[in-house]
């Protein structure tokens, strides 16, 4: 049975009149890559700061490895953080930055240097130790911040949108590296992001935040395939909802239903679908967005509402798909991909 790295109980945090965190209960397991996903202002960063100890909760408890740390200062917690803006000390060299935590723990100088160099090698920055943070690129600074937080081997590493400032290519590369690094060092990672793709790529489990509350906690597949609320359905992946009357006409039941765009096939209107397990809906193509590898069809349904369908461009080219604009089509998908979401 694996242990619990972080346990949050009825956690609330208010700043004056605004409620940043409105009652969060959460358990993060040992060795897990755990993401906290949500739009800005959803409370995810505040929860991170409450775990690190930069804020004290208005109500509730924070436990780290079974120990109540609610009132403890950051320097009394075995947790290190990678900050969004990296927060490297500008007056120290890269090596001094990385060795800072060791220096505080009074690790002898020679050992400090060896371990700092090793940590820099882990993030592939060997040979940059003597430079100042200002002399590094954004991606390199990000790695230094990572090395600095990892060098003391904390039980828990918190990452506050660490990839936010990087460009797309570097981001994607760092996502894979971070995940590999986490497996290698075996430390629990708590990763805050507003980027659903990033969360899906890297995480063992994801917590989706909305207005200071938890909407859903689950594996990437659970979050994506079985969204628990309409907020999760629309925030993770493309919003594709059938509501009330439209749902009643197409699916035979009311309420709100989510269908992921890539599960929907686009056929000619005349096509016959005689599979009982499939739902179908006819409509007019309002817009065609060619994305290179895929094409996105926005279809206004006769039953009301609009659905997005995503198709691989296996054999179609840009001209072929453009011809669909304004034409009549039939959409079809397997009923098991229809997820009823409570509002």
């Amino acid at each position, binding site marked *: 049975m694996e242990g619990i790295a972080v346990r949050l109980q009825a956690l609330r945090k208010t700043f004056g009149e605004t409620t940043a965190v409105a009652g969060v209960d959460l358990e993060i397991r040992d060795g897990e890559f755990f993401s906290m996903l949500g739009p800005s202002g959803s409370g995810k960063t505040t929860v991170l700061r409450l775990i*690190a*100890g*930069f804020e004290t909760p208005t109500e509730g408890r924070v436990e780290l490895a079974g120990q109540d740390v609610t009132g403890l*200062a*950051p*320097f009394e917690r075995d*947790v*290190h*953080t990678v*900050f969004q*803006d990296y*927060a*490297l*000390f*500008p*007056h120290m060299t890269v090596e001094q930055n990385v060795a*800072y*935590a060791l220096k*505080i*723990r009074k690790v002898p100088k020679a050992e400090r240097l060896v371990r700092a160099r090793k940590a820099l090698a882990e993030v592939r920055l060997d040979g940059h130790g003597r430079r100042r943070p200002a002399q590094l690129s954004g991606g390199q600074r990000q790695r230094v911040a990572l090395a*600095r*937080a990892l060098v*003391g081997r904390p039980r828990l590493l918190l990452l506050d949108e660490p990839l936010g400032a990087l460009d797309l290519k570097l981001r994607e590369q760092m996502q894979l590296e971070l995940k590999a690094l986490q497996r290698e060092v075996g430390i629990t990672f708590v990763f805050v992001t507003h980027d659903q793709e990033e969360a899906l790529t890297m995480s063992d489990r994801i917590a989706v935040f909305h207005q200071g509350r938890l909407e859903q906690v689950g594996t990437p597949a659970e979050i994506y395939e079985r969204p628990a609320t309409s907020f999760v359905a629309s925030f993770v992946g493309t919003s594709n909802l059938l509501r009330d009357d439209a749902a009643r006409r197409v699916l035979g039941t009311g309420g709100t239903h989510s269908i992921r765009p890539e599960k929907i096939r686009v056929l000619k209107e005349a096509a016959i679908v005689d599979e009982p397990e499939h739902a179908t809906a006819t409509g007019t193509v309002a817009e065609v967005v060619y994305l290179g590898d895929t094409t996105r069809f926005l279809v206004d349904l006769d039953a009301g509402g609009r659905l997005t369908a995503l198709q691989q461009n296996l054999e179609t080219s840009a001209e072929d798909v453009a011809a669909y604009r304004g034409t009549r089509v039939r959409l079809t998908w397997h009923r098991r991909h229809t997820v009823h979401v409570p509002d």
Partner: protein
Amino acid sequence: MSLLTRTAGALHRRPRLRLSLLLTAPLLWLAVLYLGSLTVLFVSAFWTTDSFTSEVVKAWSTDNFHELFTTPVYRQVILRSIGVALAVTVLCAVIAFPLAFYTARVARPRWRPLLVVAILTPLWASYLVKVYAWRLILSQGGLADWMLKPFGLSGPGFGLSAAVLTLTYLWLPYMVLPIHTALEQLPAGLLDASADLGARPGRTFRSVVLPMVLPSLAAGSIFTFSLSLGDYITVQIIGGKTQLIGNLVYSNIELNLPMAAALGTVPVVVVVLYLLAMRRTGALSSL
């Protein structure tokens, strides 16, 4: 096209002309009035005075400097002046740091500008008014005596320590302001990061706050040091019999102008040396 537009256009096409029009007046001021008078000071320091007629003899001689460094009184006064300037600087730094820390990081953000204004307000009052106020405070039976009496103590009276105290009061804003600015600009994330990596507040102060504020502290010290070194009025009013370089310059100006010039060269040289020392801390780029 109006004349104005045409002139502006012509100037736009001739950047050199534009620059020279802009800089001629200030450069003349700098060259003639500032550097010129400094040159006169240096040159006249090497002249002498006829001891019978008190006339200035315009002949090259290093007698003045020889006298400066061999006469015990002069040596004493020079060392005392430097000592006073250093003491004032240290006192200013010790008082200014916590004050600036409060105004920059502890006080509510909406109060901060008001507090800074409050610190700067004394600079709007006349120098002499402030010095005479301190004369009243430090006089026998004055405020200082009255306040210290319950503790069985008395005020410092007029003298060297009174002068140091008053100069510290006078130049304190020049030290608070740069430190306040530096502390205000210190990113909160760095303090969080330091605590996050295990540093207690004292450690964060020593390893992060102090090194990052040091250039500004040094910049402030340039003001307090040079202003103290050049002061002679405060000493005259509350220094008792104490004499500093400025007083010697003042008393020599009538009878022995070249000697006064030689004495005047001393603080210039000391301040230049101080600036060179402070440059190593990066203070000059944070002025």
